[in-house]
């Protein structure tokens, strides 16, 4: 028996979303077509860590997004949302604040009504803030016992600096500094219609769009609130490259190696995505094959490039038995060197490329995948037609250009090395 012929994925096209302007000029992008009558609405604000008045204010606003209005307690508000089986949740990113609604279409209208209430009328009661502070401090204690958490905190602090919105650490002191006035200030300045874009996915017709316009299109900007300015914040990276945090009684060490990186705007981005795939981006990668499948030193090892609005980050992450730590580190660096000194075979490139093209195809599959991709490109200010362009570049990247990229970016001295264990 031999393997049947493998068909290459030749064309991947990303569908255009429907684009609508609501009555208040808020833009809406939609991907339609699930089988079930469901809808997900994301309201994305240009906000997040980047614009918050003090550390942790964006995240706390998200957590207290249903904390009550002058007429409804937090319990009553939650109970009403839950009664329709709907979910309303808010989350704070580095450059975004997102409010999401998941619901069945037959409950769209009451869900939108409650969503609008959350957007306009939350008052952040003192008792809710205090309870959240206490519980967050308790949960922080559990996180501080986890090596991977500690490594992640140390890594971000080293790369961006502890005052940077991408790099600061949650401490008991930071949690205690949260106040009602800071939350209200952020809520009022950032969560305004002129500062947001809507993304919807699921199954919708004119009747659903009408309801969305009825509730979110009639939402008007609070008088006197200015638009969010795009300020510049410099990173303050650590001079110290090797950070080893000792943790008593650990059986394993968590390792993160990496550095500040570019984002999707950089010309090297698509080819580097392919290089990263070969290096540590999938199960067949060099790191995984060598360190897990050949040597059994870890349960998993991955490298990744994550892109943000203002830059990106490249990192390698794994956990390994303490006694194998040195071997594991040596092999990771050896793999970065091999990519700099030896050309990758066409066979290996083809394998990783085809795998990656399958991943890109997956991102075009169905409204929920489509909205995720479109939203991330939109937030990072990248035109969506770049998606297909990236696919073409990945198809045509050769061994020589991959080697040049490795030489340019895999320099050991440029990397931070964090070990906790």
């Amino acid at each position, binding site marked *: 028996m*031999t393997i049947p012929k493998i068909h290459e994925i030749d064309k991947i096209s990303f569908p255009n979303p429907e684009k609508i302007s609501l009555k208040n000029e808020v833009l809406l992008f939609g991907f339609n077509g699930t089988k079930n009558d*469901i809808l997900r609405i994301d309201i994305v604000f240009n906000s997040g860590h980047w614009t918050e008045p003090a550390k942790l204010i964006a995240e706390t606003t998200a957590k207290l997004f249903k904390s009550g209005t002058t007429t409804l307690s937090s319990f009553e508000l939650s109970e009403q949302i839950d009664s329709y*089986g709907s979910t309303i949740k808010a989350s704070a990113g580095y450059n975004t604040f997102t409010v999401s609604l998941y619901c069945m279409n037959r409950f769209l209208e009451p869900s939108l009504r409650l969503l609008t209430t959350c957007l306009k009328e939350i008052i952040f009661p003192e008792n809710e803030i205090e*309870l959240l502070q206490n*519980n967050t401090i308790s949960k922080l204690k559990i996180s501080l016992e986890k090596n991977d958490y500690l490594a992640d905190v140390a890594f971000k602090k080293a790369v961006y600096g502890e005052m940077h919105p991408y790099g600061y650490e949650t401490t008991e002191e930071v949690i205690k500094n949260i106040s009602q006035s800071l939350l209200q200030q952020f809520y009022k300045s950032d969560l305004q219609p002129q500062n947001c874009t809507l993304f919807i996915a699921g199954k919708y017709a004119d009747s659903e769009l009408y309801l969305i316009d009825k509730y979110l299109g009639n939402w008007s900007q609070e008088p006197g609130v200015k638009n969010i300015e795009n300020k510049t914040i410099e990173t303050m990276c650590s001079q110290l490259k090797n950070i080893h945090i000792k943790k008593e009684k650990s059986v394993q060490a968590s390792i993160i190696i990496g550095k500040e990186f570019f984002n999707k705007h950089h010309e090297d981005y698509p080819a580097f995505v392919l290089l990263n795939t070969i290096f540590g981006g999938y*199960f067949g990668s060099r790191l995984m094959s060598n360190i897990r499948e050949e040597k059994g*030193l*870890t349960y998993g090892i991955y490298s990744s490039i994550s892109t943000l609005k203002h830059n990106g980050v490249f990192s390698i992450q794994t*956990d390994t038995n303490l006694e194998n730590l040195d071997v594991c580190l040596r092999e990771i660096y050896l793999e970065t060197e091999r990519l700099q000194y030896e050309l990758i075979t066409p066979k290996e490139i083809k394998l990783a490329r085809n795998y990656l093209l399958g991943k890109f195809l997956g991102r075009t599959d169905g409204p929920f995948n489509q909205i995720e991709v479109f939203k991330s490109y939109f937030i990072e200010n990248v035109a969506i037609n770049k998606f297909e362009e990236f696919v073409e570049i990945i198809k045509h990247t050769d061994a020589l250009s991959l080697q040049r990229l490795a030489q340019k970016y895999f320099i050991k001295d440029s990397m931070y090395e964090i070990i906790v264990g």
Partner: protein
Amino acid sequence: MIEYSKEVLENGLTLIHHYDKTTPFVVVNTLYKVGAKHEDENRTGFAHLFEHLMFSGSKHFTNFDKPLQEAGGENNAFTCNDYTNYYDTVPSVNIEIPMCLEADRMVNLNINKKSLAIQRKVVCEEFKENYINQPYSNVWHILREMVYEKHPYKWPTIGKELKHVEDASLEEVQAFYDKYYHPNNAILVLAGNIEKEKASELAGTYFGELKGSPVEQKIFEEPEQISSKQKTVFEDVPLNAIYIAFKMCDRLHPDYYVADVTSDILSDGNSSRLHQRLVKEEKAFVEIDAYITSSDEIGMFVIEGKIADHFDVQKASILIWQELEKLKNEKVIETELQKCKNKMLTYMNFSEASLLNRAVSLAYYELLGDANLINKEEENYDAVNSERIQRFAQKTFTEEKSNTLFYLKKNGAM
């Protein structure tokens, strides 16, 4: 409604086909009816170790992952107490790649010393990463052992202890394969952009010739619990925690749905009872959760919570019991019940949007006895009413049937 068709091949392999022409992908999902419950008590962790070995290559294909990745596909697997499930997603034009790979490893797996030695180490690292090196991570080892007296659910899929995995020999692993990996002990689901005739034809081509072999069906017993059990452990953790577990019905019992809704009434969402009363009003817990383990046989109903600093542990336990008593003494009102049903329905609707979820679920319900159970879920949840919840609570939440684990911080006072 998820449409599908079913046929059984001559060798006993069950084939389920589900057509979705809106996706460019096909999922090939292979479920084997073997899980941790089929292991010997002194040799646990085998089903899961074996799942790792299934990626070691087979007689005709030295590598499993590479051809799949080259076909633009992705694959993975998971093991639970009842079964082991392998899934491959590929662009539909490359459907034959996972078909030939899955068929070959179903009967021709290449188990060798080297891959066993490596995967033993990998699994030991997984054990340490998830069950030793994290706070509270050995809870399931303790809790299962407490709740189950005889049933093999008393150990987790990762295994009772590291040593069982470390000592696994080539002969034992081979014997495990020979015993359980046969077409007649498997369910194959082909879902996605492939028409029925084509699915049937390909299944015949690749799997039709494989030889079936009788697999012994084991029956596991578990005595009824007659007196309460309690255990206290002291560990290096920052917060005291409490776990209260009760045995409950099997997955096919109508009460399963009652139990699921009951757990949601207790802890699903901010307006749920435990969250509202014990976290927000009493400030007794930092977080609290109630859930059921969806095992095929005797399941568990678990309530677990991390207790707020300085809050008395016994008092926290009493507060949980007060909520359980309320379920026994008072009927749940209609709006509260409807809320949980609506949430369940929304969840099911969103979950169905994923082709992979549909494929895995079809295989799972077929394992339970009938793939069409997937289309009866809504009805089953809808049939839950306040009387049934009350009866379930009265029958389940009794002192003598409870298992309580106090998981306390070292040097902390009870």
